[in-house]
């Protein structure tokens, strides 16, 4: 419980980072191994993901990108046959420590999925959903306060102008692009510190992809963003650092520009070239 509290407090920003050394690293993993039953999907993942930047995660299908993402917000554990070893610290706090409240972990670490998954309620209610989950039961917000939250979140994802006149429309009636933007927007009122995005543009057309990329750019700095992508061009233009994974292992992690121009490992070069263009 204390641990959860600690994460919650840092989440409020006021308490700030736990220490100077962890301040630079939003996500720190040490010898992270993960098994689905007998199948090992992650091998000794040691990563330090910097705070406030966009890090892209690339690699061929099945190399464990989704698995890695899903272990950081502990959503993998829902499957009874998943076994995890090693440590993951988020802003200096061990997410597997005893007493950590899973709900708090997920509140701090938002996730965007491959397929947009808005809830079948109004746009407005979608944005407020997460916020209401964590709000005090007794204190109901005034309508005007709610409106502010909704507008703020929707503006941040560049969706406000398109939907401001019909906030009561069902979210599931929006276009895929708008749905995905909404799925990002509804994370924001909860004030997460990390946003995990699993191929957030793969269901979108090129125009939608561009729009969503643009908004992700806008979120960097305020949030630490870890984004899985199959699109090399996207990784290259839209991320500061880049991690290349292969068969459950991290092969390379470095500055995106360097990785793409002068990859250290041959596998990285092969993958980048094979997929590029």
């Amino acid at each position, binding site marked *: 419980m204390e641990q959860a509290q600690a994460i919650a407090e840092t989440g409020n920003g006021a308490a700030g980072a736990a220490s100077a050394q962890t301040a630079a690293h939003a996500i720190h993993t040490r010898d992270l191994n993960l098994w689905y039953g007998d199948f090992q999907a992650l091998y000794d993942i040691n990563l330090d993901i910097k705070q406030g930047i966009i890090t892209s995660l690339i690699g061929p299908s099945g190399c464990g990108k989704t698995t890695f993402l899903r272990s950081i917000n502990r959503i993998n554990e829902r499957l009874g046959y998943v076994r995890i070893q090693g440590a993951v610290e988020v802003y200096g706090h061990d997410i597997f420590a005893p007493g950590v409240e899973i709900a708090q972990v997920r509140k701090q670490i938002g996730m965007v999925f491959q397929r947009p*998954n808005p809830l079948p309620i109004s746009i407005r209610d979608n944005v407020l959903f997460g916020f209401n989950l964590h709000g005090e039961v007794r204190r109901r917000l005034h309508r005007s306060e709610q409106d502010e939250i909704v507008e703020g979140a929707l503006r941040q994802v560049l969706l406000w102008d398109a939907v401001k006149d019909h906030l009561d429309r069902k979210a599931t009636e929006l276009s895929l692009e708008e749905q995905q933007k909404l799925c990002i927007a509804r994370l924001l009122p909860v004030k997460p510190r990390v946003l995990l995005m699993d191929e957030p543009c793969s269901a979108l057309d090129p125009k939608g992809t561009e729009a969503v990329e643009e908004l992700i750019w806008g979120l960097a700095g305020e949030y630490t963003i870890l984004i899985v992508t199959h699109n090399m061009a996207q990784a290259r233009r839209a991320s500061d650092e880049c991690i290349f994974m292969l068969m459950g292992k991290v092969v390379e992690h470095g500055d995106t520009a360097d990785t793409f121009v002068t990859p250290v490992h041959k596998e990285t070069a092969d993958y980048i070239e094979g997929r590029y263009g």
Partner: protein
Amino acid sequence: MFAATHLNVQNMRRQSLVQILFMLMTAILILPVLIILATLIYKGGPAISFEFLFSDPRDGMTAGGIFPALVGTVWLVAVALLVSVPLGVAAAIYLSEFAPQNWFTRIINLAIINLAGVPSIVHALFGVGAFVLFFGFGTSILAAALTLAIMTLPVVIVATRESLQAVPLAFREACWNMGATRWQTIHRVVLPNAVSGILTGVILEVSRTTGETAPIMFTGAAFFLPFLPESVFDQTMALSLHLFVVSTQVPGVPDEMPYGVALVLIGMVLAMNSVSIAFRMYLRGKKKW
């Protein structure tokens, strides 16, 4: 260039043949239902009157109406529903949303499905043993309704579980990822999206209890009791048993009477089903996905 080839013609013929065959099979299925309904309406229709529905049986059940039986059936079904729906829905929520998905849960699920297949006469005997004798409710509406409830529990659980599992995983994941607890997820997203399925499924399944005879025969339904029950500890007449009695047990019953009773019984089941279907359509219209 676009004219049909020999092969086209053959394929088309084969298709028509299959189509006609399947249509015939459907007809064979529907025909008995239509015949039963037509017979009931033709033979039982003349028996139906205000007096028939709202007066007591007279002259050793060879005349008069069916009011006590009608009221008794409503009592039995209502009490049974009141018990089995909350219990069954809660159990289904636990089994599908909370219980760890391990061998033990799987065995329980299997047992529930098997329970649905237990013959109603066995439930009747269980009801006598448990409710009439052990709990000392005597032969009463309570004992009979509880027996019906036990009998319908498995179908209520199965119908509820199916509705719960029809709610897409994506909705739940969306919730979990905003830090919702399991209960928050269930109560804010899963249930609102499953409730129409649960209600209609449950009503459809439970409406069948209206016609059950065996489970209530030994536990609370009386042969002839020409006054209304005052509490759940009274015995009562019931339509299903009354139908059995007037068609086989008493001499001198006018021909149209058993048909009339059957017609009312079927009418009740159909009415419940229609309500459930109308309700489903109403909720679907409101449904957001």
